[in-house]
């Protein structure tokens, strides 16, 4: 049996065909397949990564919008409170102003009434004096001498009344 001695013919064909097959496959076969597998692996990894990033981004956007919303709410509250305060202030100021102007007007009215009264009193007094003089003249029947002195006397009398 020559099972353990390699046959030269088969050896020849084996070396030749193995070399050819190896050359063909190593050049145009396996690199293409391995490259495609690696590229697909990279593509899948990249897709997973970008999906993760997108998720994270979405979560951050959500958080941001929530924060924005709550911020807006607090701001709104503050604005409303401020506006209420302002309103109260304005109302108070208006009230105070109205009060002051009313008081002023009353004071002025009082003053003018006083002045008017004084003047009226003055008029009445002089009228009364002249009336009294006239009446006294009529009563006496003659003209009094020294009218001015008479008038002074009468006014003194009125004051004493």
């Amino acid at each position, binding site marked *: 049996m020559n099972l353990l001695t*390699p*046959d030269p013919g*088969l050896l020849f064909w084996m070396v030749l*065909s193995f070399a050819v097959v190896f050359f063909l496959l190593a050049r145009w*076969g*396996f690199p*293409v*397949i391995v490259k495609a597998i690696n590229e697909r692996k990279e593509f899948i990894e990249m897709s997973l990564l970008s999906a993760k990033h997108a998720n994270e981004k979405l979560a951050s956007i959500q958080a941001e919008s929530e924060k924005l919303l709550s911020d807006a709410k607090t701001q709104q509250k503050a604005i409303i409170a401020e506006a209420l305060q302002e309103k109260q202030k304005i109302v108070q100021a208006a009230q105070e102003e109205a009060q002051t102007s009313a008081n002023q007007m009353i004071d002025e009215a009082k003053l003018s009434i006083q002045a008017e009264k004084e003047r009226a009193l003055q008029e009445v007094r002089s009228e009364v004096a002249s009336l009294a003089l006239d009446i006294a003249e009529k009563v006496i029947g003659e003209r009094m001498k020294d009218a001015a002195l008479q008038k002074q006397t009468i006014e003194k009398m009125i004051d004493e009344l």
Partner: protein
Amino acid sequence: MRASKEEGKVDIPGIIFGHIGDSYEWHIAEGAVIPLPCILIGDGGVDVFMSDKLEHGQTYKGYHIADEGDYAGKIVTAEGVRPFDISITKNVLELLIVCVLLCWGVLGVAGWYRKNGYRKAPGGFVGVMEAVVNFIDKDVAKASIGHGYERFSPYLLTVFLFILTSNLLGLIPVFPGGANLTGNIAVTLTCAVTAFIAINFFAPKEYYKSIFWPDVPMFLKAPLPIMPAIEFIGVFTKPFSLTIRLFANIMAGHIIILALTCIVFVTAQMGAAICAPMTVVSVLFCIFMNCLELLVAFIQAYVFTILTANFIGLAHNE
């Protein structure tokens, strides 16, 4: 075949060794023989003819098939001299079939990727090939060699698929298969020589230093180079063990299946009472052995590849 029936006796060794050896024609069944071309380079130049010219001991162009002697079963000249014989024998044809299948399969799959790109998911045969290629590339080559594995990956893939295809074709009993290719020492020797080249010819300087001047106590390497001698022998025993392991495993599988099949013919002469149950036993054992051989076909291809990858890895990372 050489299964001659002498006085009703079945020549079991003849049948078995006829099947696991090589032959100049492809015997399918009684009367169905495919003649194969013989290519002989002798003193008188190149001779090419079909093997049926030499059937039944005929002589053609001064050549005949020797019956006995060192070249029994081989083509020799009238003087018993063996020409340089590169005939397309049964094993050579099987080898060519394997090569064509490999090229067609792998280049076809590569073509699919060229056409469809990596964004389309493959199915069917392309999917299977992708899984196999990825397995050898990542889990064998990358895991064993590490950095720089890309240089060796195509070789490991080629040798794995070559051995696997040959093993599986060897299990098919009829024409496109059945030859004992990976159970032939010439084939496994060539595979091992390629492994030897892949292991040693691309190794860094440190690898050769570790062989000829290893890091051991001085008295182990001078004046008597004990360790260098052991390491040097180890360089050759590694591929040698690859040769013998694959060859012996596949040949043994073929022998067992053939022997189990022969039970039917041996017991046929002993009467129906023995033959019938033994036939059942034979068939059951044959089914079992074929399943086992299917497993062995994968295991041996994997073992050859991963050992080669490990040897390459050791040479690069020492």
